[in-house]
Every structure is written in structure tokens, then in C-alpha cells.
């Protein structure tokens, strides 16, 4: 995301819910801050992962799917905690409440054609709709072929289903499952896992510690020509250290 988009995203994540209730597009309400409003360079308030989080977009069956998928896509294993432990499901639920969830700043007018990948996203489905239809179709496939919903399957079965969805061998007339998996579910899980903790995922910067990423420190000029490992732990956008 470009810097401008990121800001719009941050800003939108705060103002969208009331605007959505009024049916107003958030894009028109964005205002360019005056040059001297230095305070505007501060990010939105941090709302890190909450232990007692209740989803606002996903229904109970959808929430069970998202949690189960997170637990398999980045599992809790010898390397460290996984996507479920780091709050990624709530990151995705909250992400659906931003302009992104409604594709509010994408071009979403017809005509809609199947296109080669280099032409970008061609569907008229918003990210919210992708999740709603995609989860329903996968759960339906699991129920029909394996006798249970996705969340109730064994981990090995879940991995198998996800691999088949990704490969395009599980198809549905109701949802573009391959696009849902690669373009939304997997992508959003990675965003939540590696994004700043202020958005609800990457709890306590554990994902950054896992890969040795120092976080939002902006500059490492003094270290570039040194052979030794960088010795400092990460910092998040709100200055918290880990």
C-alpha cells in the first residue's frame, strides 16, 4: 500500500462505522490535512488484540471458519505462536469494517469480465462478499464430502481442503474459491500476522520477533555495513517496545 493509501486506511478504519450506517461513502469525507497540521502525522489510536473480542461482521459459523483457517495457514508450532494466537481473526473481522471491506475506494463499476491476472481484480464481489460466499461454499463442500463443516474437521483434513481450494480443485458455482483463498483469506492472514499490532493482529509484535523484524524504526543506516546481527527488539507504530 502506498503511504497515502495507508493513511486513508487508518483514517477510514476510525470513521467508517458511523458513515457506513448512514450509507455515506467514506472516500468523499477524506480531507487533506493542512500543511502545518503536524499532529495529523500521528496514526490512529491503537486498538491491539483483545482477549474477549466479539466479531462484528462475521456470523458465528463464519467466525469458526476464520479461526480454524487462521490456525492452519500460520499454525502454532515449534517456531512460535500462530495466526490464531496473535489475534489475526479479529484483525480480519475489523478489516471488514474499513473501506476495504466494501471495496469503497476500488473501481467497482461494470462491465465485469474474466481477465488475465495482470489485469487485476475483475470481480464485482467486495471483500466482505468474498468471505460470506467463500466460507459458505467451502463449508457446504466440506459438509457434503466430509460430513462436517470446515471448522469441525481434523487439522490434516483442513490442510487438505485449503490446498485443494488454493489449487482450484474444489470449485463452487456460488463463489470464486480460488480467488477468495489467494486474493483474500491468505493475503489478509499475512497482513494481520505481520501488520502493526495497533490493528488487532501481531499481538505483542510476536510475528516480528519470529522473523527478526525490528518493526517501525524507519532507518538502520549505522548497521548496513556491519556483519553482526542487529541487536535490538522491535518497536510498533505507537512506540511500544518488545
Amino acid at each position, binding site marked *: 500500500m502506498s503511504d497515502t493509501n495507508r493513511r486513508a486506511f487508518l483514517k477510514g478504519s476510525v470513521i467508517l462505522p458511523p458513515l457506513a450506517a448512514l450509507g455515506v461513502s467514506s472516500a468523499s469525507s477524506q480531507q487533506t490535512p493542512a500543511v502545518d497540521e*503536524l499532529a495529523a*502525522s500521528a496514526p490512529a489510536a491503537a486498538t491491539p488484540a483483545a482477549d474477549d473480542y466479539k466479531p462484528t461482521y462475521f456470523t458465528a459459523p463464519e467466525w469458526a471458519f476464520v479461526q480454524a483457517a487462521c490456525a492452519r495457514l500460520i499454525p502454532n508450532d515449534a517456531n512460535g505462536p500462530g495466526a490464531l494466537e496473535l489475534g489475526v481473526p479479529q484483525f480480519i473481522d475489523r478489516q471488514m469494517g474499513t473501506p476495504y471491506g466494501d471495496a469503497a475506494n476500488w473501481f467497482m463499476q461494470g462491465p465485469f469480465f474474466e481477465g488475465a491476472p495482470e489485469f487485476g481484480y475483475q470481480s464485482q464481489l467486495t471483500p466482505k462478499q468474498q468471505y460470506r460466499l467463500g466460507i459458505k461454499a467451502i463449508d457446504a463442500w466440506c459438509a457434503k464430502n466430509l460430513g462436517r463443516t470446515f471448522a469441525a474437521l481434523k487439522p490434516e483434513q483442513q490442510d487438505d481442503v485449503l490446498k485443494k481450494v488454493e489449487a482450484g480443485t474444489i470449485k463452487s458455482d456460488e463463489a470464486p474459491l480460488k480467488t477468495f483463498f489467494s486474493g483474500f483469506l491468505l493475503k489478509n492472514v499475512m497482513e494481520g500476522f505481520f501488520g502493526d499490532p495497533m490493528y488487532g493482529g501481531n499481538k505483542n509484535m510476536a510475528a516480528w520477533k519470529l522473523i527478526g523484524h525490528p518493526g517501525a524504526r524507519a532507518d538502520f543506516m549505522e548497521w548496513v555495513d556491519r556483519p553482526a546481527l542487529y541487536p535490538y527488539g522491535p518497536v510498533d507504530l505507537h512506540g511500544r517496545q518488545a
Partner: protein
Amino acid sequence: MRLAAQSWLIVILALIAAVAAFGLAINRNLPDPHLGPAMAKRAPNPSRGAYIATLGDCAACHTTPGGAALAGGVPLATPLGSVYSTNITPDREHGIGAYSFTDFARVMRQGVRPDGARLYPAMPYTAYAKVSDEDLQDLFAYLTQKVAAAPAPDRVPGIPWLLRVRWPLALWNKAFLQDARFAPEPAKGAAWNRGAYLVQGLAHCGTCHTPRGLGFQEISVDGGSAFYLSGARLAGESPVNLRGNAGDGLGRWSADEIAELLATGRSPHAAVLGQMGEVVAQSTQFMTPDDRSAIAAYLKSLPPAPEEGRATYAPSGATLAAFMAGRESTVPGARMFMDSCAACHRLSGEGEGRSFPHLGGSPTVLAQHPDSLIRVILKGARLPATEAAPSRLAMPPFGWRYDDQQVAALASFVRQSWGNNAAAVSAEDVERVRKGLR
């Protein structure tokens, strides 16, 4: 209780009546502004007066941002409350259109209006008293002939009503006003004398940079004290020490570097902050190079203020070495510096040329009062745009990111690293400055 309150009231009223009578007696006689006899024959030069207005930076206090030029209304904080600058356009009712030159000179030198009312010394007439007859006359010609009249009435001061009586300022003047023109010292040369005349007079540097006494008076207005221009604390900022101290002063600066800062707002040592940015943008960048150099020459001639209680600076690589060795964690504030500051100011504290200020030996960092340092951490800053250096480089604010305790630790780290040796900053200091920002 009630009786006690009433008797107190009577005593206070009697006191007010007594001193008011005394005050009226003082007010009756308008002081003589001591204009030379040659003034009556001299033809004033309003164009030259425009430059005098620039040197004096009249607009800084008398022009509201976005408002009519020199129509007043800018709030100025005093210990008793805000006072508002007045309309100095030629409007006859609200401005100075009905003033004679003598009236104007009296205001500029003695702080007394034609109706006998006293100005609050927020108007730096103690400095303007140094200004020559000729410069005043040209300034008056400029203000009355070249400035557009604006019918803007003066604003009532935000000072409690009882304390708004102005006659005690006559006593203040008796105690603190040196009604004397600048006296050249020929032995020091033309540049020094021009610089001293500007610094003490029109440029009124001491208004912000000289510490004040119990009466809120500048403790020296003519360079006679070793504390003249030695740094102060005013309106949420801590204007720096302009004397020759190697730590918090300009001792390690060359005269050219001082002149460069006045022209561009930046130098290899530091960049301007806060209100000094406005001074550079509105006044010093438009001075002639000779005048800026004269000011620099005069400032460089000021010996260090007494070092007692002042910060020192002895450049040291120990801070950088500790960072590179991964040892920051033993020093509070170091990690915050690395997280939030080092991208621009570098782990060495050296910054980058004239873009990101050098923090080792920075007068603002080392100032006796840490207010400006705290303020810039909390609120960020933006360089003024000048003709020679138009980029308005900015530092983002960190007040949203760190609480008072954290800012205190960060500011203390900055004041005690790279060879800086200044007193630590307390969370109470930060709390006080933060409150002043709201």
C-alpha cells in the same frame, strides 16, 4: 467571617483610592521623549521606515495571521493574563492616525500613550528606547503613510479587572525603564556598534533571550550584565543563550554561522524553533547581509555567562559506541531515541547537515530550562520558509506516542548523551509544558 471580608474590602478600596490619586498625579504629566532639535527640520523617509519596521519585526506582534497588516489583536501572554497588541495602522479612531511624531516617540520610548495611559511592557519599549530619533521618525512616516488604515478596535486585555489598572506601570517604568538612546563605543568599530544598536534596540532580542527579574523586567537591556541574552523561559519556550558559552551558548559558532541562521533559519549547529522561526521568516531574513553580520559580530563579542548551573558539552563517541554494542538498554530513554529520533538525528546525534539538527552541543538541547526541547518533542516543529532556504522541513510530534515520564526520560537522554551534560528533565517539567500546549 462576613465582617472580616467587608473590612478587608474597605481597606482594599481605601488603598486603591489612595494609590489611584497618586497614580493620576503621575499620569498628568506626559513624559518628554527627548527628541533632538534637528528632528523638526529633517524630512522623514518612509521607504527607509519600512526597513526599520522589518528590523523591529512590528508585524510579529501587531499582525494577526490572516488579518489586516499591523491592525493588532495578537494575544501576548503575561503573568497576569493575555494582553492584545494594538492597532498601529493610520486609522484615526482605532490606530495611530491622530498621533503626532512626538506622541509616537513617547509610546516607543516611554510606553505612554497620548491620553496618558501606560502600555503594558509586553510592548518592548524598554528596547525601543535605544532607537535613534531618525529611525523612529522614518518608522513613523512608514506606519502613517505607507500602511493601509484598518478600522479594527483594540481588544480588552484578559487580565482580571482589578489588576487592569495601568498606573502602577509608571512605577514600573521608574524602576526598570532606561530612557536612554544607544551610546556607541567607537573603539569597538562600526560593525559591532551597528550590531549592538540592532540587538539592544530594534531587533529587541533581549525581550525573549534575556532572563527576567521579579518585576518581569529584563534584568539587563544594554549588555551591562553578564546575564544579558543568557537565555530565558517565556510563553512555553526557552529562548537560548546567545552569549559565548561553549555549552548552551554560541561559543562554538562562527559569526558567519550565526548570520546564516538569521538568513535561513538553519546552520550546521542548530535550526530555529518556535517563535524564532517567525522572527527569521518575517524579519531577519530580510535584513541586509551587513546587518546580519553586524548582529553576529556583536553576539560573538558577548563573553560567556557565568557557568554555574549551566550545561557543558565535550563531544564524545561513547553514546554511539554503546548503541552499536547493543548496550542501550542500561540507559533510560536511549531505546526511545533509537525508535523515534535516530532515523533523522542519527545514533551519533549528529543529524544531517542543515536538514536535521545536530543534538550534541545544541543550545536548545542544553538550555537551562528544557521547555523548548520538551515542546519540540511533544509538538514537533517546522522550519520557516526563507528565500535562501525555502523547504519547510518538519519534525513530527511525539506527544501522542510517549507519556510525560517517557518524554522526560527521552529528553534527559538527549541532554546527557554525545558529550552533552545538562540537568535531567522531570515528568513534572513535561506535564507543565504539555498543559501549556493546550
